[in-house]
């Protein structure tokens, strides 16, 4: 019966166009009691037209199986057969397969036949009355235009796909603006089990475009040609199953070879081609096909009549593009058709290391919080320090004023020296000028001397003013030797008046420290005054010895006197505020001195000398040279 049925086997026997004949088949084949004889068996025979080596059919099957396993209440047995129709064909092969299936499943009651692909469906329709009479059929991956062939079949349902060449062209235009040409790459259209109908659509779909067909060519030739394509062309890949050596491969694998040579982007129409080097397009999603078939099977297994389940389009075609290829061909996301999905986009750091990133961000936030708290504290501290410095500067100023007061008598005497010289010199000059023959050279000498003395006087006043000036605490590089020399100079007149011998012995070179020279000078003056006061009771031999030495990284100033020493157990008590041994002392001089020294990050201390007298030490860190 089947052999007599007219059909049109294409050489290679893959695509069979039997549209129109199905009507009579239906009448002949279908027994009237078919639906009544329905097997209640839960076994499913899944047939596809390829083999499962390629990812496309495998994905269909996987989705199908997954869905059945997830939904079926009782265990459904799934048998699967790959008819391998893209590689084998012809009446003999079909006969073998038929007998094989017949024998294999003789004792296996099959509940539902699943036929994936047009070629499979053609065979199933031819064989069903003999092999699986009354068994409902579910099909998938049937072009919407081909669905007419099942119109009069009983107990059949399935999903159709709408894989249009026009969509591929749309995708091509999106990928290459101002598209000029299309290059079709694939096996003979007749051998194409999924894309064969494109040949018929070609004329209308490619209107206005230059079309090149690299169809049915050996692989090496394809690879040569796709390497030298013109500008503004796009390759549309259907499927190539063989390489130049005659080996058969799944078309996803052959696409990989082609893509390596291609100098233009490749539009594809199957989701599984994306990974192999296709830039994308409106692609078939195998999982959707498998899932759709599974849903139909489940309904039938659940007791529904297959003929009552409408044949509907499977929503299996979707614009999907490959990000890596888009980068390669410089295609922007905005150029893609609306609703396009982009695959293989490099995941961002956030997507890749979500929780690590979250931890890192949290840590950073906590750190930032801590830092801002610390900064705030530091700010407060520096404000407080500034405040303390300002107070110190004020206090030091008050104290300096009292020192300056004590110094004023000797300063006046100091000033008298240059003033006396100036007066005498000026009078001498007048005298010379009054003479009949004035000696101008001498006048010049006198003027030079006057200038020198004037500068000297202003220097003395400058020192005094420095002491009286209210200055903010300011750290600069100062030479300890210079500070002590100036201080001793200021004190020299005072020392002479009070019959005290001042000696100064400085370390060689400079002793640079970071300091406020006025305040340091103030400390030294204070110490020298104290030493003088301590020696008032001594009738003779009043001596003050100033000294600077380098000790480690510090410059040390020492001021020794020949007085009675410090009359207390602990000589360093004297630095406490309001501690005084003088009748009219306030007891603030040394405490101010200590505060100043501490503000200089230095140390001040006092010792009684074994041979008598006290020595005060000031140690300040030297600046690196």
């Amino acid at each position, binding site marked *: 019966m089947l052999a007599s049925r007219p059909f049109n086997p294409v050489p290679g026997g893959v695509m069979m166009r039997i549209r129109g004949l199905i009507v009579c088949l239906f009448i002949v084949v279908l027994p009237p009691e078919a639906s009544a004889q329905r097997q209640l068996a839960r076994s499913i025979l899944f047939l596809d037209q390829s083999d499962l080596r390629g990812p496309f059919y495998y994905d269909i099957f996987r989705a199908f199986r997954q869905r059945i396993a997830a939904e079926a209440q009782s265990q459904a047995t799934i048998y699967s057969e790959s008819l391998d129709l893209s590689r084998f064909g012809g009446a003999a092969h079909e006969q073998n397969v038929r007998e094989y299936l017949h024998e294999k499943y003789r004792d296996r009651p099959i509940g539902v036949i699943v036929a994936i692909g047009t070629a499979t469906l053609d065979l199933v329709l031819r064989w069903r009355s003999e092999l699986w009479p009354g068994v409902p059929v579910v099909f998938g991956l049937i072009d919407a235009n081909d669905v007419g062939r099942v119109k009069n079949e009983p107990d059949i349902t399935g999903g159709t796909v709408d894989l249009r060449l026009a969509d591929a062209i749309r995708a091509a235009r999106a990928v290459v603006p101002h598209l000029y040409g299309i290059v079709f790459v694939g096996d003979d259209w007749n051998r194409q089990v999924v894309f064969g109908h494109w040949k018929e659509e070609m004329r209308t779909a490619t209107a206005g475009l230059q079309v090149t067909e690299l169809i049915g060519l050996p692989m090496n030739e394809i690879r040569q040609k796709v390497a030298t394509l013109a500008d503004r062309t796009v390759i549309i890949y259907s499927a190539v199953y063989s390489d130049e050596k005659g080996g058969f491969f799944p078309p996803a694998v052959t696409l990989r070879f082609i893509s390596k040579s291609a100098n233009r982007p490749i539009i594809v129409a199957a989701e599984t081609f994306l990974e192999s080097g296709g830039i994308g397009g409106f692609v078939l999603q195998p999982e959707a096909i498998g899932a759709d078939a599974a849903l139909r099977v489940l309904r039938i297994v659940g007791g529904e009549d297959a003929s009552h389940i409408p044949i509907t389009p499977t929503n299996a075609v979707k614009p999907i593009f490959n990000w890596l290829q888009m980068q390669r061909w410089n295609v922007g996301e905005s150029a893609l058709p609306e609703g396009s999905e982009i695959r293989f986009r490099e995941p961002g750091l956030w997507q890749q290391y979500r929780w690590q990133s979250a931890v890192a961000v949290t840590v950073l936030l906590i750190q930032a919080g801590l830092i801002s708290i610390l900064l705030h504290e530091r700010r407060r501290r520096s404000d407080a320090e500034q405040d303390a410095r300002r107070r110190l500067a004020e206090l030091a100023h008050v104290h300096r004023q009292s020192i300056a007061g004590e110094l004023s*008598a000797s300063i*006046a*005497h100091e000033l*008298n*020296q*240059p*003033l*006396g*010289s*100036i*007066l*005498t*010199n000026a*009078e*001498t000059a007048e*005298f*010379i000028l009054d003479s009949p023959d004035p000696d101008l050279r*001498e006048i010049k000498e*006198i003027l030079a*001397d006057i200038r*020198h*003395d004037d500068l*000297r006087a202003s220097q003395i006043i400058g020192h005094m003013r420095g002491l009286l000036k209210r200055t903010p605490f300011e750290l600069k590089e100062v030479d300890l030797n210079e500070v002590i020399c100036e201080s001793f100079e200021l004190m020299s*007149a005072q020392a*002479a*008046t009070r019959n005290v011998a001042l000696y100064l012995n400085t370390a060689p070179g400079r002793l640079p420290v970071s300091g406020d020279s006025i305040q340091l000078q103030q400390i030294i003056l204070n110490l020298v005054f104290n030493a003088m006061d301590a020696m008032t009771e001594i009738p003779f031999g009043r001596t003050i010895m100033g000294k600077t030495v380098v000790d480690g990284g510090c410059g040390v100033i020492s001021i020794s006197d020949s007085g009675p020493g410090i009359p207390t157990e602990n000589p360093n008590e004297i630095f406490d505020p309001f501690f005084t041994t003088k009748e009219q002392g306030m007891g603030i001089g040394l405490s101010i001195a200590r505060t100043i020294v501490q503000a200089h990050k230095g140390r001040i201390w006092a010792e009684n000398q074994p041979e008598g007298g006290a020595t005060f030490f000031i140690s300040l860190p030297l600046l690196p040279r």
Partner: protein
Amino acid sequence: MPGTVHIVDDDVSFRTALERRMRKAGYEVATYASAQHLLDRLPGESGPACILLDVKIPGLSGPDLQQRLAELGSTLPIIFVTGYADVRATVKAIKAGAEDVLTKPIMSDQLLPAVERALAHHETSRGLKARLDELRARLARLTPRETQVFELVVQGRINKQIAQQLGATERTIKAHRHRVMEKMGVDSLAELVSMAERLDVLRRLSAGIGKVD
């Protein structure tokens, strides 16, 4: 009056100014940075001179120098120069024989008269001293016997007593006495006594100094 001014001051600038002024006023000038310096080169007194001395000089002070010079028999008048008026120090200096005390800054119309006065003063004391030296020289020319006679004569002894004391004849004593009058350049006993007075002979004798017996 021409003369020499010795300036002692540790301040080189003031010293120079004073020196210049003094030279312009027509004086010879010698300068010293310290009291010791002056002592080391003790100035002679062959002509009128004076010392301008800073009270506050390091080392030996002005008053110290004044004392040392007095001990050395110097008659150089000292004008003290001070930085500021210190009444106590001034009184002390004047008592110790200071010629004057000037306060810096010193106007020329104070300084020049002061120097002039000092030089004049020195000239006077220098004249007195010269005459005394002359008398001493004359005294020195007397023989020991004549000196004995001179000392006894000015103590009011008559020839007879002298002869008795010295174990000589009255006549011999008379001859000695005549030579003494001659050598000492006097004509009368009164003049001789006056001279002895000036030479301080009487006081020394009454103190037992140089007593003959």
